[in-house]
């Protein structure tokens, strides 16, 4: 194959390389969809509380186990899906009221500690209840891979579609509903919001509930790809962070764009530039580079500090 070959061989080689590139692109998109949903959850909490929830990944994983248990007991997929989303919403509200609220006036560092404590609790609980072995998780999108050459599996395509749906719902919620408006107001200016009659405390709780629900969707989309075990969300969370930072942590569109971009960039850079075993460092580099060059992310609002 390396000796002098007629033109058809080189174009065949080029076609193969193109196919490989497309494969990398496609799997990056698929995984990026999952990162994007997680990034959306992060954005949700950030918009509501101006905090970054380090426990988001573990909460998503725990929700996914809940869904798995329901299906194990015989429930059909979509029932389990929606039951989990609702249960996660309630769970998120409860966590905010019980665990996060007491630290509302504590320094930021205290909240960070609390989130880390939460993630430890969820991780260990999942391990205790369900064991640490890897299990499979069903996907609702079964069937043959699309596009013949199998660039993207049915589930992966479905995950991307779900991402876009969730994004649309979130956008519509924040922009078009009175509740969404109230939440944005509560986050931006709690004092004035209270004066206008908005129950700021409950806005925060609802924000957490929504984030937990979105996170559970992310978990359920990720599990068929990465397989379900208590440690499945660790790496995903990091890439989701990178995506949220890249796109702008206060902008849902930005977060989705960032998540997908990180998925694609990670694959391409890993495959063609630095080698697959340093992809996490690529995420780290993205985070630092974006924060240095453009802290608000590509689509975030530029904030100027008042002096």
């Amino acid at each position, binding site marked *: 194959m390396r000796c002098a070959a007629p033109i058809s061989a080189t174009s065949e080689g080029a076609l193969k390389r193109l196919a490989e590139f497309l494969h990398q692109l496609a799997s990056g998109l698929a995984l990026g969809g999952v990162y994007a949903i997680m990034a959306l959850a992060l954005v949700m909490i950030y918009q509501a509380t*101006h*905090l*970054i929830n*380090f426990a988001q990944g573990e909460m998503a994983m725990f929700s996914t186990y809940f869904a798995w248990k329901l299906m194990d007991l015989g429930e059909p997929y979509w029932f389990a899906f929606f039951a989990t989303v609702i249960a996660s919403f309630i769970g998120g509200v409860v966590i905010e009221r019980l*665990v996060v609220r*007491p*630290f509302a*006036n*504590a*320094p*930021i*560092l*205290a909240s*960070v*500690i*609390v989130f*880390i*404590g*939460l*993630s*430890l*609790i969820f*991780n*260990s*609980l999942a*391990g*205790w209840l369900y064991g*640490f072995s890897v299990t499979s998780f069903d996907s609702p999108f079964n069937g043959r891979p699309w596009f013949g050459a199998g660039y993207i599996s049915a589930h992966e395509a479905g995950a991307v579609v779900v991402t876009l749906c969730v994004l649309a719902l979130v956008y519509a919620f924040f922009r078009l509903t009175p509740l969404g408006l109230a939440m944005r107001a509560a986050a931006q200016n709690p004092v004035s919001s209270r004066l206008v009659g908005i129950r700021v405390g409950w806005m925060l709780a609802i924000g957490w509930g929504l984030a937990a629900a979105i996170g559970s969707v992310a978990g359920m989309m990720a599990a068929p790809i990465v397989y379900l075990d208590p440690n499945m969300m*660790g*790496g995903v969370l*990091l890439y989701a*962070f*990178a995506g949220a*930072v890249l796109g702008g942590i206060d902008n849902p569109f930005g977060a989705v764009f960032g998540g997908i971009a990180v998925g694609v960039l990670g694959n391409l850079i890993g495959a063609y530039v630095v*080698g697959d*075993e*340093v*992809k*996490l*460092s690529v*995420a*780290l580099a993205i*985070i*630092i580079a974006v*924060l*240095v060059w453009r*802290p*608000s992310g590509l689509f975030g609002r530029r*904030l100027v*500090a008042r*002096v």
Partner: protein
Amino acid sequence: MADADGALGALVAIAVGILALAFPFAASGYHIYQGAQVLILAVALLGLNLLTGFNGQISLGHGAFFAIGSYGAAILMVKFGFPYWAAIPLASVVCFIAGFLFGFPALRFGGLYLALATFALAVATPQILSYKGFDALTGGSQGLTLAKPGVPFGIALTPDQWLYLVCLACAAALYWAARNLVRGRIGRALVAIRDQPIAAETMGINAALYKTTCFGVSALYAGVAGGLSTLAVGFVSPESFGLALSLAFLVGIVVGGLASLGGALFGALFIEFVPNIADQLTVSFGDGAKALPGAIYGALLILVMAAMPTGVAGAARAAARALTPSRQPKVETGGVNVAVNYEGKEKSP
């Protein structure tokens, strides 16, 4: 600072010092090893506290600097034959430079974003350490093994005791250095930068220089701790330096008390012994519940934060203040009280 506080503080310090010195002669080898671990952790916590407690820069990635110190010392000792008393300082200097350099981009983002970036650093560290290109130096995933340092001049001590005393000497020296730093102009500047960054700049403090230097110094402390840990454990491999380590450091300074140097010891004791206690508690749940210690650890974190937000040191200080009648009101003007409570919720940009 009221005199009662100072006298009480000095008394406590002396008592702790005597206990620490007497300990290795009263305890068994395994416990001495644990004692050395506590001291090592305390050094790392001192460094992190300087950065996060006094200077307000949240770092979730100090495990990375600990790893640089650890691997640096190991490589110098194993591959280049340096003696430990040269390898550890050299490795710490490398850490200082690394921390100083990391401090530059850190200037641009503060608060939560810095937490995020350092979190990413912590997660990426094991991957970076096992990078194929460094295998020749780092021993790859097999890691590097070293022998415990021998006792010099034939002093009648066991290697465990000698190691403990080396750690104690380093910890004491570094504590003394940190204390002087914090009580002096530099300490006040750091706290001013943390609490009122714009006002501090207006007063002529070069915030950028102080912040990056503080990052470097705190990395240096972590590096010393890492080097000592290499000596104590006798083995380094990428698995030793994951996210859990960085998170443990953070927990240590919060539980011990932010902006409190003495709290470093409390914090170190907490992260060294509480997981073991959590282990014991689950014995009654049966063998299947071995996974529970993590949950108990997490729950304890939240409870400690709820009950003692200023950490053990803060609670102890509050108790002391409650017990000693104060003759004059505490005035906190421009000069900042070193044992200051960490207050104020920072809004990230």
